[in-house]
């Protein structure tokens, strides 16, 4: 069994990666596809996205806001909408 690793998104702290992942999962679950993510959730997601292994590439020129949109095989995921009008999906599971 691996070592427990705490995760923080801004002021929000989780004792383990599993907890952080479950939190983001629940956040994703409350949105329908096509929804814009609320301002409060967007703050958390910004911090989360910073932890993504490809953060620099995903964030690009800067974050405008986030959406929940469809992903492959009927699933849904978070998308970052950038200030230059481009958009990119990312897996919240990688943000831990």
């Amino acid at each position: 069994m691996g070592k427990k690793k705490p995760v923080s998104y801004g002021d929000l702290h989780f004792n383990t990666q599993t907890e952080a992942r479950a939190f983001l999962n629940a956040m994703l679950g409350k949105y329908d596809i096509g929804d814009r993510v609320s301002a409060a959730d967007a703050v958390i997601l910004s911090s989360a996205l910073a932890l993504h292994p490809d953060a620099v590439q995903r964030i690009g020129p800067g974050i405008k806001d986030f959406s929940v949109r469809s992903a492959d095989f009927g699933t849904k995921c978070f998308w970052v909408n950038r200030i230059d009008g481009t958009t990119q999906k990312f897996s919240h599971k990688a943000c831990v």
Partner: protein
Amino acid sequence: MAEGVGDEIATLTKLTVRSELSNLVDDPEANTADKLDWHRLILAGSILARSDMRANQEAGLRIAVGAVVLVKDEKVRDAGAMLLGQLSNFRAVTLAIGRGLVADDLDGRLGVSLRLETQRREMDRSVLVETSGRWLEVNEFQQRFWTGASSADWLSASAPTASGKTFLVLQWLVDQITAGEAKVAVYLAPTRALVTEIESSLEQYLKAVKGVVVSSLPLRTKFDDARAGGARLILVLTQERMHLLANVLGADFLIDLMIVDEAHKIGDDGRGVILQDAVERAVRLNPKMSLVFISPSTQNPGELLADAPPGATTQAVDSDAPTVLQNVILAKQSKGKPKLWNLVARQGGEEVDIGTLQLASSPSSIPKRLAFIAAAATGDRGGTLVYANGAGESENIADFISQLQPDHDPGAVDPELAALAELARKGVHPGFRLAKFVERGIAFHFGNMPSLLRLEIERLFRSGKIRFLVCTSTLVEGVNLSCRTIVVRGPRKGKGNPMEPHDFWNLAGRAGRWGDEFQGNIICVDPHDGSAWPHGVPVRSRYPIRRESDAVLDAGGELLGYLEERAVGAPRDVDGDGDFEQVGAYLLTTYMRLGSIADAELAKRHDAAFIKNLDQTLSRIAAKIEIGSDLATRHSGVSPIGMQRLLETFRAYKGEPDNLLPAEVASDDSYDRFVTIMRRINASLFPAFEPDARAKLLALIVFQWLKGKSLAEIIRRNIAWHEEVGKAYKLPDIIRETMMLVEQIARFRAPKYFSAYVDILHLYYVEIGRQDLIDADLDIGTQLEFGVSSRTLISLMELGLSRMTAVELFEKIARDDLDRDQALQWITERADELDTMELPVVMLRELRERLLPSGGAAMTGPQPV
């Protein structure tokens, strides 16, 4: 008649029908017409012509036509022409003279008394067109219509298909709007195909008339202009578009005159209720307007006058007089000889043997039967319509007919047919089968095709360049397209339902081009096959008009049960067909508006005890509905129960309220948002986009359509989507399926349910104090109906371009915010460069004819019949 000239009429029938068909096996027993006693026959014809009975008039017409067409003796031909005049069939007389069958100066050859009688008849049978000061020669029905429509407030006219109804109604409408007081008139046409056709015909009539415009868009610009004293306006609208316009205008929806074409469709499932609702809504807002209903061969046109306001004068004009001979021919395979088909013509209750038709090959399937019989009977002539039960079958039959035509030289294709093929390849798909068929003078035609393509097919069929047209029920739905011959086997309407007799006769009525032909043929294949014709080939008769709402109300307890269940269950769990949903919505809305169904006009047509029961049921349901009656009225056919449930869904929504809105189509979220909204509509309002799994494909089509993508592009993307998700497809099927989805989902269901969704959402936003989220821009229903979301595209369509051409042109225009004048200016400035823009020829022609009249060729739209 049977004892008098029955045998001679049978002989005449045989001879006239044989003269119309090719590939008949020689019949040594066939008499020649010259052997008949024409003196006696003409006398009989003139007596029969005085009768009011259709069978007698038909016999008179057959004698007249026989005399003109079959006989060598000029005196007999003159007498035949006189007899046609006696039947008020002046167009047939003109045709006979035009074809050289009757020599010019017929009057000069008559004695004084006969000449006086002829002139008196012609004067009696003329009406004055006020705008032109010209006298128009008309038949008896047309005359009664003209005088009736000009004197009564409400008029309902019914006559057989080839009686010149549409021609006359359009003349009368133009006369009323130019010479009369009317500023705004609405012409309700129940299908988009008919809307396009009527609009083109009116434009043709109004070319020389200043100060009148025609539009089929439910936008207020031209309406406000007309009301403010600018150009008068004729709006040609489907019932759905009329509701959209009434929603935009509210209490300003003030019109002076309304014509309801194909008014018998008030009895159709679903859309019949929306039609009835549209008429009632217009009358409520305009109790003093003139109203004219027209319908083909109905028994009781007066039924539609029952709801006229108190004090309004009403008149029913009803005719059953034939204008062209219509030969119903039954085609049955000879026993053991599949290439030989025995033909008999129906003559009253009798059957007259016509002869044997020889086919080129043995037909091993039903589509082959239709194709081979059509090809053999038509021979070198054109003008044949083959009725197919569905779009896919129409393509296959067209394919067989094309294979039976002589080899053609690909380099020698008629330029107009080549232009149509180009439009099919560029505007739909390079593999669209229509393209290669039309190069050989054969086409298929169904309702979901884009209107520019369909109109061009109809035009080239009328001109004779397309010789065979394989069609589906769209033709019965009121396109004014006539032909020489119809070939039909077990016709179905919609999804496999045997065609009702009145629909069959509406179709059959298209055989015989009045003024272009003396007769038309309806070849009914396999008449004795019970699976094809469950009730046999329908006998000619007139059929009653019955409102769909009245028919459903007669279901009594079943309807009450549905309403009770609908009020408590989720929409997808409620048993019952669409008819109950539509009529239920109509009744509940009426109840909410009046407070009691007993006060509605419909109550007088039903049992008082049942109405009382209905009132109690509706009262229980209405007590739980917070949606106002104004809002319910705006969405004809959408149940207020569903609307209430949707409002509750919004109230229970825990996310950000702006997530409930459709996102702008330019936004990345837009497509996914559509998917969610469709699922929300399925769950709360009505399962219009079921199953949920399909919502993704439907949303994709709606999204592309709204983005203003061309049909060709939407088809390409649908193919790409299928490939992406690994779904197998066949090219012809996917082309047809995409066209169907555009028409049925993007242009019909989506506008209906999305506009109700947005309205309820606005109500919710007001409730929670978030009016800031309400966008007063063009409403989503109108955007979806036309498939546009940019101002420039709307402007191009407002200028009169088809969506197909507007979209193609928009590709070349940089700005997306041009108003009408700016868009016109853009085009005018580039008039010389249009040829270099690589637009298909048919689109270029449309552009020139509609927007650059000085540089355009002569208008070649459909001719009024």
